[in-house]
């Protein structure tokens, strides 16, 4: 058994957790999220660089929350999501034990949120090289070219809402698109309806998204929607100095303000 598997078995045995969310190998030979309920299943757990899913999203699921004492394995994206969700006070009804594997292959079990916050702040990742290149490419286009690019992308969207489903920050029990009095966002997956959806999503995530990139990775139509929130985060950091997933204090770009926020464009 690996260090991780041993540690998890130990946590089950001493009653710290009664459910563990982690990764295992699937039949189709790729890591998949898995849910372990006792020590004997701990040997299923794996961790490789291919374990990219952001598992924090499962901490909102009612079937998972039934377990009350939840262990969760975090890659960096998951850890940052947990920090951000803590700042939004979303874990009031469960006890969670957070594990990760550091750069030296050691298993860390965070004793409390301060430890987690320190770890995350010390290892806070930058936006990936690939995404920076894509953003630079989009910046190099003229306004009309950018409009053509995005409207073509939005035409491909089928409104499956996989992007919303995988995002740990999208935890509203009734999403704004599910409200039909009035039907604020069009249900149909024509281009205009898709643009409405992606705009509203980007705005509701602005200042909260931790740039895990899951939405873009998961989109079946291959739309790089993670770039929308990545750009938001870049701009909000420039303007307001805020970084989602950095601190467990409850302030982020759009729920606070400063009296002297710059406003050059306002007449």
């Amino acid at each position, binding site marked *: 058994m690996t260090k991780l598997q041993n540690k998890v078995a130990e946590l089950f045995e001493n009653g710290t957790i009664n459910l563990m969310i982690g990764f295992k190998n*699937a*039949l*189709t*030979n*790729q890591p*998949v*999220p*898995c*849910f372990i*309920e006792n020590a004997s299943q701990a040997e299923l757990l794996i961790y490789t660089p291919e374990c990219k*899913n952001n598992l924090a*999203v*499962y901490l909102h*699921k*009612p*079937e*998972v929350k039934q377990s009350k004492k939840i262990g969760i394995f975090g890659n960096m994206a998951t850890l940052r999501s947990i920090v951000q969700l803590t700042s939004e006070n979303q874990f009031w009804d469960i006890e969670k034990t957070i594990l990760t594997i550091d750069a030296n292959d050691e298993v860390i079990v965070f004793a409390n949120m301060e430890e987690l916050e320190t770890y995350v702040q010390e290892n806070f990742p930058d936006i990936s090289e690939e995404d920076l290149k894509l953003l630079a490419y989009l910046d190099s286009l003229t306004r009309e070219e950018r409009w053509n690019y995005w409207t073509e992308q939005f035409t491909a969207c*089928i*409104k*499956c*809402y*996989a992007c*919303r*489903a*995988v995002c740990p920050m999208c935890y509203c029990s009734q999403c704004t698109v*599910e409200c039909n009095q009035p*039907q604020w966002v*069009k*249900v*149909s*997956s*024509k281009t205009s309806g898709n643009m409405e959806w992606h705009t509203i999503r980007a705005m509701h995530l602005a200042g909260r998204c931790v740039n895990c990139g*899951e939405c873009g990775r*998961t989109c*079946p*139509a*291959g739309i790089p929607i993670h770039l929308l929130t990545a750009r938001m985060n870049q701009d909000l950091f420039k303007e307001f100095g805020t970084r989602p997933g950095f601190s467990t204090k409850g302030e982020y770009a759009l729920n606070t303000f400063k009296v002297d926020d710059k406003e050059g464009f306002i007449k």
Partner: protein
Amino acid sequence: MTKKVLSNNLSGNGINTFPMELKILTSANIPTFFNNLLQSGKVVVAPVLKKNGKVYFESVESYDQVSTDYIQTVFSAKSVVFPKVEELFSYTKKEDGSVEITNDMSNVPETVIWGLRPCDSSAFNYLTEFFLKENPDSYYKTRKERTTLISVSCAKADDACFCTSVGLNPGSTEGCDILLTAMGDFFYTEVMTEKGKALIDAKLFTDTEEKSKEEFLAKINIKFSIDEVKERIQNAYESSEWKHESMGCLSCGACAFSCPTCTCFDIQDEGTTENGKRLRCWDACGFGQFTQHASGHNPKTNQTARRRQRLLHKFKYSVENLGIVSCVGCGRCIRICPAHLNIFENILNVTKA
């Protein structure tokens, strides 16, 4: 194998009685055949490789755009006969207060879907049965009448394919008008219907005797016995395995939207009191609100219930309602799922003895 054989005619009841014709098309003539289809004024929908490295069905303008080296497209081709957004009618209030309702299907073009896999064309049988059996859907009927299906046999498969477990195989002719099987420098062509025959150009195709496709088809291990599954699933509703098998499900609609046999839809009106349209949009049983009543009650209270519904529908309720298992083993749901849920793994676990 008790899979019911459906005909390719639109009434969906009866066996295909067209006498199959066997032809040879040389590989060199494929682009010509393809471009002739385009030139005849038909819309041709074929698999195209996109920048993200995956293959999608798109309407194309030349054979150069068609992708041939792939296992399966991300989305099915059902959008040709069941679009993701379909205008059912438009309405306009006239000056005298009356309302004019317009529905014009005359512009739906003659279409050829090229490069379907045998699992996909078999799925069209299910769609026809579903849309036309009891209350014929005129929109589907019009689109299907104007669509010809050209399938290509599978030489390759991956871990997510399981057509052989649901009574199909990579060289099956179910549901298509023409099936092409690559055999070296030519394509063995099985012409299955009048519609298919109408596309055959005698200058490009030559007659041939029956050939064996076996050695040119992908080898797909059987994951389960469909008869055993159909029997055991009768008692699977109460299985305690469902909760564990659905834990990963995040209730998006990706599996339903990519599935070639999923037909659920939502009706939406877009417009004002003066004019607007009524639209039919894809919907998915995985969404939390799918079974939400206006009273606030939701009979499917959690994701476990919803995932169970989806799997039972494919393997039990379709059999009860329409006589066929509606899963065709294409594997799209497995490849697309953000949480990597695996339908045949789930089925095996809930029907364990």
